[in-house]
């Protein structure tokens, strides 16, 4: 394994509160030193020099909400293509969701995913396992065994746990493994046939709505259950002002609740559905500007801990359908970082330190994984970001197998330029 010296970059590591220009030395796959003088290190076959002048050197980014689709829906994405997309987006570690076929409710499926990820040898892949057997919401999956196999979190993902008693049991049971429950808070009775956010636009377009209160009602329930059990709950892809405010208040009471927001929810509104383009159909839906502003306010004041992409690939033919028949979701691994820079950092909603915190150390701490830091001795997962690169989203250039991005044709600023996983350069953007 060759060693790497990253020269003259602006190192921003929220885990250490570090923000300064430095030279970072990577040896034997780990961060070994700062402020190393270039002339003291021979640059040869076993030492590579990367000039990061004008660039940001960050801990490898973590995306804790990624649909890799394998096993079961390899026409949408494979573990190989999805992890390649992750690298291109600047992510060195991702958490993959268990709504596969078969679902990740047993050791065997978790191990299959791990093996495929190891063979692909792109980024680190951490499995999220099911809360309930077959994601049916009836009885608990074998969580202890799943933790042993490597599951870092539990969720029934797109099938929110409707049964409050089961959710309570899951929170209680996971106390002894100190793993979080991740829930997609949404009450099914309020969203039947829903296609988009319920509001003025859905009224005009006559598309069935997904009201904000569908998210609020279950968020309230989950906070109550976390509060009474002492369990760890993480709310996935929050999209409403109401749910974010409930999280804010719960945190002041000390409830062990964390929350994430997706880039599309702080970038786009339901107005986009006027195009009837199914690339704007997601769940939770794109909401109106008041909710969008609430997402940004939650990110700014720290209520929202994590930015996660909810990368949801769907093959072209599935999205080329009537809006009610097209599936929910958008690919986002390759646009997530640029949207954070373009729509949060550039307008001044977040500074670099806070933005990167939500994409590195915060998800690492929620998941209990030793990632998201550039402390000396830690795994050398590093993302070098060009903060000035202005680029246009071109579907032909996606590493993902799917093309369902709502940002096609958009001009964005900032991009991962070099991505290092455990001391090996896994991605370099060609000029």
């Amino acid at each position, binding site marked *: 394994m060759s060693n790497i010296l990253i020269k003259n970059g602006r190192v921003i590591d929220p885990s250490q509160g570090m923000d300064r220009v430095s030279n970072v030395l990577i040896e034997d796959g780990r961060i070994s030193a700062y402020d190393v003088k270039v002339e003291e290190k021979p640059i040869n076959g076993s030492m590579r020099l990367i000039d990061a002048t004008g660039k940001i050197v960050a801990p490898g980014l973590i995306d804790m909400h990624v649909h890799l689709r394998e096993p079961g829906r390899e026409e949408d994405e494979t573990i190989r293509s999805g992890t390649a997309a992750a690298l291109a987006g600047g992510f060195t570690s991702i958490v993959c969701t268990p709504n596969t076929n078969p679902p990740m409710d047993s050791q065997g499926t978790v191990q299959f995913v791990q093996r495929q990820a190891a063979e692909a040898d792109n980024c680190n892949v951490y499995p999220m396992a099911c809360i309930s057997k077959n994601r049916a919401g009836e009885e608990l999956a074998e969580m202890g065994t799943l933790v042993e196999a490597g599951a870092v979190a539990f969720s029934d993902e797109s099938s929110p746990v409707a049964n409050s008693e089961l959710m309570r049991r899951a929170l209680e049971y996971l106390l002894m493994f100190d793993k979080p429950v991740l829930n997609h808070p949404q009450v099914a009775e309020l969203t039947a046939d829903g296609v988009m956010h319920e*509001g*003025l636009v859905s009224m005009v*377009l006559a598309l069935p709505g997904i009201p904000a209160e569908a998210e609020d009602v279950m968020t309230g329930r989950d906070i109550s259950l976390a509060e009474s059990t002492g369990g760890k709950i993480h709310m996935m892809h929050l999209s409403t002002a109401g749910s974010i405010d409930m999280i804010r208040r719960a945190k002041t009471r000390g409830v062990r609740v964390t929350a994430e927001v997706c880039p599309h929810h702080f970038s786009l509104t339901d107005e986009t559905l006027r195009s009837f383009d199914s690339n704007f159909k997601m769940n939770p839906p794109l909401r109106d500007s008041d909710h969008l502003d609430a997402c940004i306010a939650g990110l700014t004041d720290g209520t929202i801990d994590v930015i996660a992409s909810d990368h949801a690939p769907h093959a072209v*033919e599935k999205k080329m359908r009537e809006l009610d028949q097209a599936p929910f979701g958008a690919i986002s691994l390759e646009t997530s970082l640029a949207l954070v820079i373009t729509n949060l950092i550039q307008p001044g909603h977040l500074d670099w330190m806070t933005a990167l915190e939500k994409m590195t150390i915060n998800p690492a701490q929620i998941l209990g994984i030793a990632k998201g830091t550039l402390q000396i001795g830690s795994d050398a997962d590093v993302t070098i970001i060009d903060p000035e690169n202005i680029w246009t989203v071109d579907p032909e250039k996606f590493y993902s197998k799917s093309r369902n991005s709502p940002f096609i044709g958009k001009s964005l600023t900032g991009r991962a330029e070099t991505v290092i996983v455990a001391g090996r350069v896994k991605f370099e953007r060609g000029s």
Partner: protein
Amino acid sequence: MSFELDEIDVIPESWTRSHLLDLESLSTEEITTILDTAGRFKEATHGCKQKIDALSDHTVANLFFENSTRTRNSFSLAARRLGADTIEFSSSGSSLSKGETFIDTAKNIEAMNVDVVVVRHATPGTPHLLAQNIECSVISAGDGPHEHPTQGLLDILTIREHRGNLAGLTVALVGDIAHSRTARSNIWGLRKLGAHVIVCGPSTLVSRRWEELGVEVAYNLDDILPRCDVLNLLRIQFERQYTRPFPSVREYALLYAMNGDRMQRAKDDILIMAPGPINRGVEVTPDVADGPHSVILDQVTNGLAVRMAVLWLVAGARER
């Protein structure tokens, strides 16, 4: 006998649309162009009874993914009155069962040298998607509960024939606004032409949000009735509702059916309209539906005139 095209004016320069997908995106001038053209077609064909060689050598395909009798026949007859050939394709639900997407179905129909596709589909926005994916002109014959532009136009043409001008008139749309494509097309068209629009019906089917678009919202028909110049009585769309939005049909009829008693309290010259099919006894009683104020059958004739006009305009814009 058949009339020649030169009896109809050439397409106005300002008309550039090769599709008619909704009324929301049309300008006042464009709506007026369609209404004027429909009026001239109606006159030149003596009430749409005769043919005119405006679209000979053209083919119009009716692509109906949702059940329809009257709209499909109206478009079909309108095309034939213009001298066009027609292709009929209907499939309830969609071609999903055969594994084909509706876009593929449309492309297959288009490959038969079709100039205009008339599409009805249960999903909002389907005509818009089609227009982006095929070369020929697309006319919406109703996309689910979203819009039914030719229905809106024929309703407006009917009012205009009886009143001359829409500006200043008060038009109430009564019934299931939430699920009504007729309501949406009427709202856009009527507002653009200067009418005051009231939407009236049960609060579960009439959103307060319509006020944000300049529409008056009312839940009590008797309160607004004395002010109305036109009542358009919409059918309750039982088939589009997930849970029943009111306790019983009986209660609905008590609150909203236009009957003889209510007619006593209406303006002397009120126009009673209904897009059909009508549920007699639910939204309107037979004495009113068949009474002297009813223009329901005028609407049917005007449907032909409007569809002839739209077919001719979009086909002409595409060729220009």
